[in-house]
Structure formats: structure tokens, C-alpha cells
């Protein structure tokens, strides 16, 4: 795929289903749930510690300012302290908002996707039109819910972060064997092959693990990921088998 071409795409293929890869895939799916549990614990620790302390401290600073008993030179210092604390809370809000897992086990897959859409709108101010063009099955494996959620999350976050996209159309549908989620935006697009190549070069440390992370998650589930991008925007299609 030439970098200058107006449209580029990438399609990942399912892993070869030899005995060994099947085993590896089952193990990887087990790890998905474990990773979500770890994440939940980290977020709980941040919630119980820094958030309470910073919020409590900010309340007291605002109280002092309201009472108007602070000397004007000190008031400026207090305002600067309050502004730093508010920035710290804002960063924590974005982190918790993005990474806190939904109740994967209790919620059906459609509800989880819809919650993600609302969350993305709420955190970024983007608008996301979400439609389920067919009903989605009630009973699906936990690893499938986690994968769909995190892959869709990455697709939305990437487009917002790198292409400044503010409007998305997300659709979800299912047949007996697959769930398909499609994300469409009319942003400036990008060269898929080039970005994928760059991600492999810089690795996770380079901060651009988005597409690669999506591709890896799709591979674990023996699914297909197709990304078509050009000047008219980007279409990401995620197709994962139900069993």
C-alpha cells in the first residue's frame, strides 16, 4: 500500500488454528478478565486515596476563599493551589473514566457498548450515533464482551486523539456466529499501513499502540479487523466470533 494512496486499508487474518495456537488463545482470553480485575483494583485504590484527599482539601480551600478572611497576597497563592488540585483531579477523572471496567458480567453486550458510547461523549464532548441494527445475543463469553468493549474504546479514542474527530456513527449487529461492530467517522483519515509500521517500530513505549493493540485483541479472539481510511474518513469494522 503506497503512503500516497488516497485510501488505505488493513485486514488482520485469524490465527492458524493449530493445537498450540488454540491453547495460547484460550490462555490469552483468560488473561483478559484477569487484566480487567487488576485495573478495577488500581482504580479503587486511586478512588479511596488521592481522590478523597484532594477533593476534601479543595473544599477547605474554597471555604476559606468564600469566608473572605484571607489576605489578598495569600488569596492568590490559595487560588493557584486550588487550580493545581483541580487539574490533578481532572487528570484522574479522565483516567478513571476511560479505564474503569463496566460490569461485564452483569450487563448484556449491547448495554456495555451503549455505556461506552455515552462515556466517550461525556468525557470528550464528541457525539456518537449508536444503532443496533439487529438484536445482540444475551449470552456471550466474558472475553468477547471485554474484547469488543476495549477495541471499540480504542477505535473511538484514536480517532478523537489523532484525527480530531467529533462525530461518529457506531453500529452493532449479530448473526448466529458473529458480532460485528463498525465505527465510521468523517475525519481527516490516516495511512493505515504507515501507522501500523510505525507502531511496530516504536512499540508501546512510543505511545502509539492503538491500532496494534486493537489488532492483537482481535487476533486473540480469532476475529477480523478491517480498517479503511482516506480523505473522506475512516471505517473500522470489528468482527468477532461468538463462541
Amino acid at each position, binding site marked *: 500500500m503506497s503512503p500516497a494512496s488516497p485510501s488505505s486499508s488493513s485486514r488482520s487474518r485469524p490465527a492458524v488454528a493449530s493445537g498450540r495456537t488454540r491453547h495460547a488463545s484460550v490462555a490469552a482470553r483468560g488473561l483478559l478478565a484477569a487484566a480487567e480485575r487488576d485495573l478495577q483494583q488500581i482504580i479503587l485504590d486511586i478512588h479511596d486515596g488521592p*481522590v*478523597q484527599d484532594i*477533593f476534601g482539601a*479543595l*473544599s477547605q480551600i474554597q471555604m476559606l476563599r468564600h469566608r473572605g478572611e484571607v489576605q489578598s497576597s495569600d488569596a492568590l497563592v490559595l487560588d493557584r493551589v486550588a487550580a493545581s488540585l483541580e487539574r490533578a*483531579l481532572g487528570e484522574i477523572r479522565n483516567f478513571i473514566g476511560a479505564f474503569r471496567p*463496566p460490569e461485564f458480567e452483569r450487563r448484556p453486550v449491547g448495554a456495555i457498548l451503549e455505556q461506552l458510547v*455515552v462515556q466517550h461523549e461525556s468525557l470528550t464532548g464528541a457525539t456518537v450515533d449508536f444503532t443496533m441494527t439487529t438484536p445482540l445475543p444475551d449470552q456471550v463469553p466474558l472475553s468477547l464482551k471485554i474484547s469488543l468493549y476495549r477495541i471499540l474504546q480504542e477505535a473511538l479514542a484514536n480517532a478523537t486523539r489523532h484525527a480530531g474527530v467529533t462525530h461518529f456513527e457506531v453500529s452493532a449487529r449479530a448473526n448466529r456466529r458473529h458480532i460485528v461492530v463498525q465505527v465510521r467517522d468523517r475525519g481527516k483519515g490516516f495511512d493505515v499501513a504507515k501507522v501500523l509500521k510505525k507502531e511496530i517500530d516504536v512499540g508501546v513505549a512510543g505511545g502509539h499502540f492503538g491500532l496494534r493493540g486493537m489488532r492483537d485483541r482481535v487476533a486473540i479472539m480469532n476475529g477480523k479487523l478491517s480498517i479503511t481510511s482516506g480523505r473522506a474518513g475512516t471505517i473500522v469494522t470489528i468482527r468477532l466470533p461468538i463462541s
Partner: protein
Amino acid sequence: MIKVLLVDDHPLVLEGLRGLMESEPGIEVVGTTTDGTRVADLARLHRPDVVVLDLELGATNGYDVLTRLRAEKVPARVLVLTAYGDGESLRAALEHHADGIALKTDSPARTIDAIRAVNAGVLVFPQAARRWMRKPAEHAVAGPSALSDREREVWGHLASGLSNAAIARKLGVSPSTVKFHTQNLFQKLGVGNRTAAAVEYEKQIPAAARGRRRD
């Protein structure tokens, strides 16, 4: 004056919010507690306009507290105060009939604004969560298909003009049981009184089916 009951298991948050609210005109803190099991009793005692409710209350879950306040019809608005503004949290707060959600990851001044707004009868949720706001009402009006056999029976008697006492005698149950059934019936049909329930019966149940049911 807006009377506020503060519920949070973190002392620094309680102390900070209390101090801040006391410096605010028009807001009075009538009570504070770190114990979720005491909220319903304190609310009856102090009659707050707004309960500010943390969700993580040690052994108690804030949603259990909220469910109890609603079940016991404590007439206070409830503002959920939490660090979590993710989709799951927004949806759960709406499902549990909170009047609003305020974030501990926002400035405490916004909590004060949210208290004033819920007190004025405004539901305080991010714009993005509004797509769920109509749904609880839709669920509440579940329609005749959601009625149990007993409720359907009570509905028929009620529509034919019988009083609760008469229905109770007919069914061999206590009048309070009939009252319980009629309340559920009204909720599921989305009506406010017996007359409206009877009108709904005429509309929804074909005459032929009514005859069979009475036999």
C-alpha cells in the same frame, strides 16, 4: 434555605464539604454521617431537602441506601457524589432513581451547584446520559402484559366497581393485600387512581375476554 444531609465515609470530605456549605448562603447542613445504615433514620429525623450520598460507604453500598430511601418514600432529593463518571456509573445512578450525580473529580463548587439544581427539581446528569432518562419511565409503565394473574383479577373486580374491602372478601385475602395489588397495578399501568385503571380496563380488555374471565 436548602437543608442538606451529608453521607460520606471519608472524614476529610465530610469536614471539607460541611465547612464549604456552611460558608454558602442558603444552604444548611442538618446532619452528617459516615454510616450508610443510618441514612433513612437521619433523613426522617432531620427532613433534609437534599441527601448528598457517597457510593462507597465501607460495608454499605450507596445504591442500597438509595433503594431504601426510595422504598420508604423519604421525600428528599438524592444527589450521588462519586469519583466515577464512567458510563456504568451514570447508568446505575439513573437506574436507582438518583436525582443527580456530582463528581469528586470536579471542583467542590460544582457539587454546590448540583445541590441547588436538584433542590429546584432539575435532574443533574451529563447531556450524554440523557438518552437513558426516558427509559425508567417506560419501564415503570410496563402495560397489562406485565400484570400477574392476581393483579389482573383485582383489576377486573376494580373495573366492575368493587371496593378494596369487597374485592378482599371475594378473593379471601386481607384488604391490605388488595391495596398492595392495586398499587402495583397502578404502577404497571401508569395510572394514578381507580377510575383511570377502570377506564384502562375498558380500553384494553375486549368485552368477550371480560365475560370469560368472570365465569
